[in-house]
């Protein structure tokens, strides 16, 4: 199956950072939806599991110019160099515990296969992968509230955001029952998307021009001029991806009208930003 396959999807997300208030609803809904374990004492965040993590960024200026933006960061579901499916983490996993679904563009993680070498965590520049340092301990009775659609994890394995794949499975089941070929845009939405009170997160199929995510992102199927391994760059000048020029080709896009926010998405040499910002997003029009 490849992307020329009519049935193939490329699920992606665009997060409007100008709408995000940093309320954390996405983090909470993600945790409860996906049976994400927590620690008794959550004061040390460095070994806490947060599939969806909200970063706080500032423009570094002093009052009154200070600006703050909150940046929710799920797994970026990288397509890898050239968008061929060799994501940084998938290509390094020694035991094939994670793979790239060419039918959905979603990077999987199989907990019962993972043996905890953590190479994928090292390879991921987004810190989107988390290790289970402890066995999960649920407070009395809470086990009954776990979702049966997401398998709980054991100590010693890596886990990460799955774009709520179980919701896709459920949506497909419904479509099968109805005798439909495929699912509707609204049938498969991630927990964070539906939980966001500001409507900052838009989720859908980047291949499908009718989906909102495609309308906003307008992904460019041609390789980018800055780096030929970059595919799917947005043609919307306000849309960017994190560390885009590394060639990881994330499927999570960010939207902001503020220049400093867009600049924070990647690394630029001194003076480089001013040269490329004007071309940003408008590459393939020429």
């Amino acid at each position: 199956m490849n992307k020329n396959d009519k049935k193939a999807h490329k699920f992606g997300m665009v997060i409007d950072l100008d709408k995000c208030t940093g309320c954390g609803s996405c983090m909470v809904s993600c945790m409860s939806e996906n049976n994400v374990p927590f620690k008794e004492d959550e004061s040390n965040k460095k070994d806490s599991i947060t599939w969806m993590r909200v970063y706080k960024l500032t423009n570094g200026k002093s009052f009154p110019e200070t600006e703050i933006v909150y940046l929710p960061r799920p797994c970026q579901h990288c397509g890898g160099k050239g968008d061929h499916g060799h994501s940084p983490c998938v290509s390094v996993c020694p035991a094939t515990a994670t793979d790239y679904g060419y039918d959905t563009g979603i990077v999987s993680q199989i907990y019962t296969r993972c043996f905890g070498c953590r190479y994928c965590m090292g390879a991921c520049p987004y810190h989107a992968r988390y290790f289970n340092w402890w066995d999960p301990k649920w407070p009395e009775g809470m086990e009954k509230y776990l979702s049966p659609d997401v398998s709980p994890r054991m100590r010693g394995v890596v886990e990460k955001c799955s774009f709520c794949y179980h919701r896709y499975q459920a949506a497909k089941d419904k479509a099968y029952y109805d005798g439909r070929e495929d699912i509707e845009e609204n049938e498969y939405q991630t927990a964070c998307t539906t939980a966001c009170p500001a409507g900052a997160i838009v989720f859908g199929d980047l291949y499908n021009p009718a989906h909102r995510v495609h309308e906003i992102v307008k992904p460019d199927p041609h390789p980018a001029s800055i780096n030929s391994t970059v595919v799917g760059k947005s043609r919307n000048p306000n849309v960017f991806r994190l560390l885009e020029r590394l060639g990881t080709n994330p499927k999570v896009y960010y939207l902001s009208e503020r220049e400093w926010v867009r600049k924070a998405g990647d690394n630029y040499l001194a003076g480089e930003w001013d040269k490329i910002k004007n071309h940003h997003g408008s590459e393939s029009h020429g």
Partner: protein
Amino acid sequence: MDSALIPEGAKRCAFPKFALGIAIVGAVVLWGVYAMGLIWWKGLNQTNMNDNYGFALWIWADLAVIAVGGGAFFTGLLKYIFKVDELKNIINFAVIIGFICYSSALLILAIDIGQPLRGWFIFWHANVHSMLTEVAFCLSCYFAVLTIEFIPNILENRQANKVPFFHHLAHNMHGVMAVFAATGAFLSFFHQGSLGGVAGVMYGRPFAVREGLLIWPWTFFLFTWSAAAFGPCFTLLVTKITEAVTGKKLVKDNVVHLLAKISGWMITTYIIAKIIDTIYWATVTVPGLGLDIDHFYSNNAFYGYWILFTEIIICGVIPGLLLIMKSTRENPTLRLLAIILGVIGVCLNRWVMVLQIMAIPVMSFDTWALYIPSWQEVATTVLPVAYGIILIAVTYRYLPVFPQEKELNAVQPVTETE
């Protein structure tokens, strides 16, 4: 007491003294084993690793012992394939050191994984595109080679050699050792290389990533080359330490000079390649990703340019030059200085290529991740060292490790007294 086991004509310290020494080092081993048990029982939460810093102290130790253990395959390659015959006087010891290094490396890997009982997945469910898979396969196979190379030496123990089958087995294994050594060199090339590849293929990490040849990033070749270059330094260093502890000369100077010379040329060529690689990386690769080399060496409490300078100049160029020049190579003090610097250099390189990578922020709003290892990590990292000391002590005492020992220490015929 154990004189029947001691090689004929060799002088060894009294058994109680030996036993005391083993007991002291053994206590350190027990400490390490206790820590290891804690980690296996309670999990990796016993370490100070975290989600931003998933590789830790012992992974550095793992890479370092494999690098310095490279002396075994390279000496074997020179001895059995390139027929550098003098090296037969040090090959046994090189093999023993290699055996220690590789068994330690495998043990560390067994501690390092979150689900040790699933360790076999790396073989059974192998993803052939992962450098780590290549490491696991070649490492295990090469450890088998080292065991095979070690066996004849064990069978040459005075009592074991009396058993006709063992005697013949040892003899026959010597006969086909070139085949094993060639296989070992093949396997070593790929696992040393793939350890370098582990870093080089991480294209999400600008500090690690390298361009390369086909599927192999340049770090692949640099790691193999550096292991072959610095491995012999470690063999010489341990030989020197053994000589100091036993108070005996065990290997003739011409053998030491030869190995030092080969090592010197290997180091020099390696460090030239390393410098070219570093310059290319710093001036082409990294700026292409929007980063300045300063990014990797500033804004943190530990990693500065000093580490780059120490690794390449002080512990690379200097030992290389000291060992290729005859006058400095044959000066015992300068030679010792060179091999110590060399060993530090390759260990530092492995540190940089596994731990500094993890510490450096990649996203513009990310921060440096430094950490202090827990005592369990320290104990399990010290464990291989203590275990190595014991194994060297035991093999030195009971096996004919150094063929030249008798000749070099022939003061008077030793009569066995109890």
